[in-house]
């Protein structure tokens, strides 16, 4: 394909261009910004997918931004892991942008262009940080996404304002820790390019590297809401407007988790072992505490937010174990959870659109098609075959047993039991209750349903197609990272 060498940067360029166009289009036709966002998100997803296919066919793709060769210039890298993550982020976001339309347009013509400009900026930042091969560039994109996210969360007004401010304080501390760590690593090695830095680490001063690594990892752990640094997440995603929660919750923490994986496994490899045990422990604690907290919630969206804390624990646990099988589990969990959580938050949004909030049990038989998709996603969260969640947890279980850590294996299984509990609670009224009578048909609008069905199909598709994804992308990524 001509111009294929520019594929790595293309999704970011498309999204940021669309973000700039959104307010301009909004001046003329505010409601058309939804179409623009869907178009931009769709094109980004297609180019990211094309990038992933190109990586499968031709191996890693590198692109020097502005023609400045690395390590001086900023490098954009598509390797199996970043191509996979970029495809996950853009693919899921394209669907959630589609489903956001009715709720966002209902807030009025004045707000839709702002919403979509911020949403596209946030997504562009997340994709940018995924494909970046430069530590400082990661910080810039991380903050681009974060600042847009704070504004999006705050747009809910009322309790969302306080939640957004807390998110902003903790997010900024996380980013600042990361930046400080990057400064120490730069002082130790004199470079910011990830590949170059990894190569120079062997002759660097150890105290500087250890300090830098600690700051970088803690900063990213805050951004990925890893227990016990997750305090911002439940508040932010409970009070954020429904379309914002659906847009951010599935992908924002995943991009940070990706950055953690990249820095930990590919840049700081020699420093990894003591950190690995800590990550496994934090991940295990996250699975249990997040799951128990989710069980106790009466607000449906807060339940989903705590379940995110729990499900992200699986990712951290897999990264901590660090064996190829466990890493495949962690990466697959990123995909499975992003798809399933997007479906659940979109369903929660559809419930909220009926009015009366999203109490646990508000999802009832009056909206059978929405409920069916939510149940499919819920089964993936629990890990019922043949959904994606089952295979992710299967690999993690295998990884834990291979590493001779029966306790960790027990946590993986226990987390599924907890998930069964909170997914049951979220869908309770479908099984034992009756539909609340509402005027008119409460079922979600067609575009929301289309997105939900796409996500539900993806939940099962990831499971059935997991062999292809794992063999072509995840196993090469995991082998490279584990040095096997």
């Amino acid at each position, binding site marked *: 394909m001509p111009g294929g060498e520019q594929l790595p940067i293309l999704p970011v360029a498309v999204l940021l261009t669309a973000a700039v166009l959104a307010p301009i289009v909004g001046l003329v036709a505010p409601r058309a910004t939804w179409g623009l966002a869907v178009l931009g998100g769709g094109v980004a997803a297609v180019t990211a997918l094309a990038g992933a296919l190109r990586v499968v066919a031709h191996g890693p793709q590198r692109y020097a931004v502005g023609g400045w060769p690395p390590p001086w210039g900023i490098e954009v890298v598509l390797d199996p892991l970043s191509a996979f993550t970029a495809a996950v982020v853009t693919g899921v976001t394209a669907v959630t942008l589609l489903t956001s339309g009715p709720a966002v347009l209902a807030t009025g013509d004045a707000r839709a262009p702002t919403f979509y400009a911020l949403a596209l900026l946030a997504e562009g930042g997340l994709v940018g940080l995924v494909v970046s091969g430069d530590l400082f560039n990661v910080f810039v994109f991380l903050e681009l996404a974060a600042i847009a996210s*704070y504004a999006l969360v705050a747009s809910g007004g009322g309790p969302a304002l306080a939640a957004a*401010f807390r998110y902003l*304080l903790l997010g900024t501390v996380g980013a600042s820790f990361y930046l400080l760590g990057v400064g120490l690593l730069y002082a130790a090695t004199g470079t910011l390019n990830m590949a170059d830095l990894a190569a120079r680490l062997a002759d660097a001063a150890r105290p500087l590297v250890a300090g830098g690594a600690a700051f970088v990892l803690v900063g990213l752990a805050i951004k990925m809401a890893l227990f016990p640094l997750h305090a911002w997440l439940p508040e932010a995603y409970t009070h954020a407007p429904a379309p914002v929660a659906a847009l951010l919750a599935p992908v924002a923490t995943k991009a940070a988790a990706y950055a953690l994986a990249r820095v930990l496994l590919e840049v700081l490899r020699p420093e990894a072992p003591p950190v690995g045990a800590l990550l496994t422990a934090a991940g295990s604690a996250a699975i249990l505490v997040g799951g128990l907290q989710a069980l106790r919630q009466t607000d449906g969206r807060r339940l989903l937010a705590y379940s995110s804390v729990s499900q992200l624990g699986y990712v951290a646990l897999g990264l901590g174990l660090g064996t190829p099988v466990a890493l495949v589990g962690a990466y697959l969990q990123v995909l499975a959870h992003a798809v399933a959580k997007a479906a659940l938050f979109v369903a929660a949004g559809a419930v909220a659109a009926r009015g009366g909030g999203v109490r646990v049990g508000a999802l009832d038989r009056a909206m059978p098609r929405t409920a069916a998709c939510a149940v499919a996603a819920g089964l993936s969260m629990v890990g019922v075959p043949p959904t994606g969640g089952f295979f992710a947890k299967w690999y993690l279980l295998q990884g834990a047993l291979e590493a001779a850590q029966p306790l960790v294996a027990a946590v993986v299984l226990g987390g599924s039991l907890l998930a069964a509990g909170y997914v049951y609670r979220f869908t309770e009224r479908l099984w034992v209750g009756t539909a609340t009578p509402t005027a008119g048909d409460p079922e979600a609008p067609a575009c929301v349903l289309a997105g939900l069905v796409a996500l539900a199909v993806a939940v099962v598709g990831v499971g059935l197609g997991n062999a292809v994804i794992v063999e072509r992308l995840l196993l090469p990524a995991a082998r490279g990272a584990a040095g096997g």
Partner: protein
Amino acid sequence: MASLGSGTVSAPYAVAIALLMLGLYTMVAHRNLLKKFVGMTIFQTAIILFFLALSAKRDATLPILPEGPVDARLYVNPLPHALMLTAIVVMVATAGVALAILIRLYARYGSLEEEAIVEPPPEAR
């Protein structure tokens, strides 16, 4: 690139670390959101100072290169300055969003004290 301590100026590091701690402490200890915000700004500024200290060398001058061969030891490292220019832009954008949120919080709750905001407002639905 000189490592920490050798040939670099070390007093700024101490100041940077002191400011870092001060900012973090202010964020944790104060219950007023505006003071938390001030702490956050001090915290970010400390990191900027830290990066600039990295680039400093004794008796070095501005990195404007003449024609011909250059001795890198005679010039301040320009890269941290370029990085911090970007970090300041990020900081300003964060501050803008933070202050906008604070203004809306104050308009709604009439206070920026944490206690007044965490409780449901009087006109709760």
